[in-house]
């Protein structure tokens, strides 16, 4: 078997883009509100199902489906905060209770979705033929998703560095009470974080589903790797999570080839995520976010 290095890198970029989209929201809410939101998995699934409804049941086409999924999943995230986690935090619930609540909420969401869309696998009707670019086999869909994820990363970077809202987001994520004391409307920022984080998760769900199929466990299967990205990247750190997402994408694609070569089931790629998670937790519990925002900028300036 000859290895097509370019294809592996391309696929890694694709898988990594999925993890980045899925994990950004997770790392932001985890960083600010201090609890792992297990229901994040269901936002991913919800995005896929909603896009399917718009694209294939209402027949409005795949791009509008993806756009609608982005917006509606974002709204779902905001509603989740307004009606569930916000009131709980106000009541002074402990981190454990917030986590348990997110588990309960995730169960409600998953089975409500199963009730609405059924248990059978669904497929997007949009089909994208593959074509070759040099040694690469690509489709327009993959290219657009990679483009989208890179655009999201770039936009996030600009947002965080160049705008007032972005600075307020970073401040809130870093130290919520201090941010509030210095006049930042942290409530509004947290709302924004829920919207963006959930919307990106929904988009990630669309991405995963368009390439495979939509099932009720779609989000759950992405969640393990998302948690791995979040912890490997450093909870609350957007840059760390992005880097970790792409590293995990690479590890997974390389791992699948190794697994096939060893004659093992490719389902074992989850083990790789677990392995990275364990290693990250033991050797670098702060994640690669030692690389903070400021140090990147400093290094960048030193180079330039």
């Amino acid at each position, binding site marked *: 078997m000859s290895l097509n290095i370019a294809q592996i890198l391309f696929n890694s970029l694709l898988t990594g883009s999925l993890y980045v989209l899925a994990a950004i929201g997770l790392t932001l809410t985890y960083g600010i509100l201090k609890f792992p939101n297990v229901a994040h998995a269901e936002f991913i699934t919800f995005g896929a199902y909603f896009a399917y409804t718009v694209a294939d049941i209402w027949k409005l086409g795949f791009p509008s489906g993806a756009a609608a999924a982005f917006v509606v999943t974002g709204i779902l995230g905001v509603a989740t905060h307004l009606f569930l986690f916000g009131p709980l935090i106000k009541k002074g619930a402990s981190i454990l209770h917030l986590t*348990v609540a997110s588990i309960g909420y995730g169960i409600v969401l998953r089975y409500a979705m*199963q009730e609405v869309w059924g248990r059978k696998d669904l497929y997007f009707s949009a089909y994208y033929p593959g074509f070759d670019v040099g040694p690469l086999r690509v489709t327009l869909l993959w290219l657009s998703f990679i483009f989208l994820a890179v655009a999201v990363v770039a936009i996030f970077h600009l947002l965080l560095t160049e705008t007032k809202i972005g600075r307020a987001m970073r401040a809130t994520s870093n130290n919520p009470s201090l941010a509030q004391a210095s006049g930042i409307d942290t409530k509004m920022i947290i709302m924004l974080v829920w919207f963006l984080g959930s919307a990106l998760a929904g988009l990630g769900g669309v991405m995963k589903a368009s390439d495979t199929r939509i099932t009720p466990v779609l989000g759950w299967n992405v969640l393990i790797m998302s948690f791995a990205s979040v912890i490997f990247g450093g909870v609350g750190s957007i840059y760390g999570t992005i880097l970790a997402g792409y590293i995990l994408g690479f590890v997974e694609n390389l791992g699948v080839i190794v697994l096939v070569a060893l004659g093992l089931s490719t389902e074992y790629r989850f*083990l790789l995520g677990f392995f990275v*998670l364990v290693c990250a937790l033991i050797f670098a519990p702060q994640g690669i976010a030692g690389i903070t925002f400021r140090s990147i900028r400093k290094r960048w300036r030193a180079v330039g």
Partner: protein
Amino acid sequence: MVNIENFILDMFIYVGIFGVLSISLNLEYGFTGLWNFGKVAFYMIGAYTSAIITTLGQPFYIGFAAGVVVSSLAGLLISLPALRLREDYLGILTLVFGEIIRIILKNEYWLGGPLGIRGIPSITPAGLDYTTTLLVQLASITVIAAVCYLVAYRLIHSPFGRVIRGIREDELATASLGKNTFRYKASIFAISSAMAGIAGAFMGQYVTSITPDQFMPFVSFTVWMMVMLGGFANIEGAFLGAFLYIGFERAARIAKDYLLLPIDPNNLMFILTGLLILIFVFLRPQGLLKENKVRDYKGV
């Protein structure tokens, strides 16, 4: 027509199994403050170990013992790296650990693969009628549950119990009193994983066939639900919670035969469980019963 006596006996057998699991989670979270969202992993390891050994022809007590030992070792093994972590990281790690074990069991055909293990020898002698079989099973799980209860009771009313509560309240302060908190946490993990292991081993021989899909993360969440219902850090509450939750589940199962619902009853069951979790988190986050008091030694 289902025989109502058998239905109730079966229900109490499950109350016993899940009561043991709830005690084990209560020791970890309720008393020591360790998050374990992967209780199902140790339940699964106990069930599979015992099932494999007994289907190879060994008697059940060897299977049970092996289930307990392997489960306990797995708990100790995962605790070594995990216990140095922050509590929420420990939760995520154990959750993922459960999924990993399930995926391995599903993909390794020599361990049964997706179809699992069938024909696990039961502890009850063949030839008994169904109700007597259930009675024997109920008696056995009662003994197991009583032993686990006594172990937990002795633990929490001992100096050991005071140390683990100390770890829960303030680990640094406990460590500053010269207690090796890591060793205490690892022991609790090993002991409670052993309990989960025997619950799994018992369950395996009771239902006589196990598949990886019986051990979804949802099982861990139901145990959390039970502990939360009964009350954190209350070992009697563990059984109360198991009884209430399983009673609720069974009642829903009966009700769905008599009700014409516009919604799939299976989905409804899960949705109601999720809502129940949310209601408890909102209205009574500490559970129904209060924490077991530390015994007063004045009279001694």
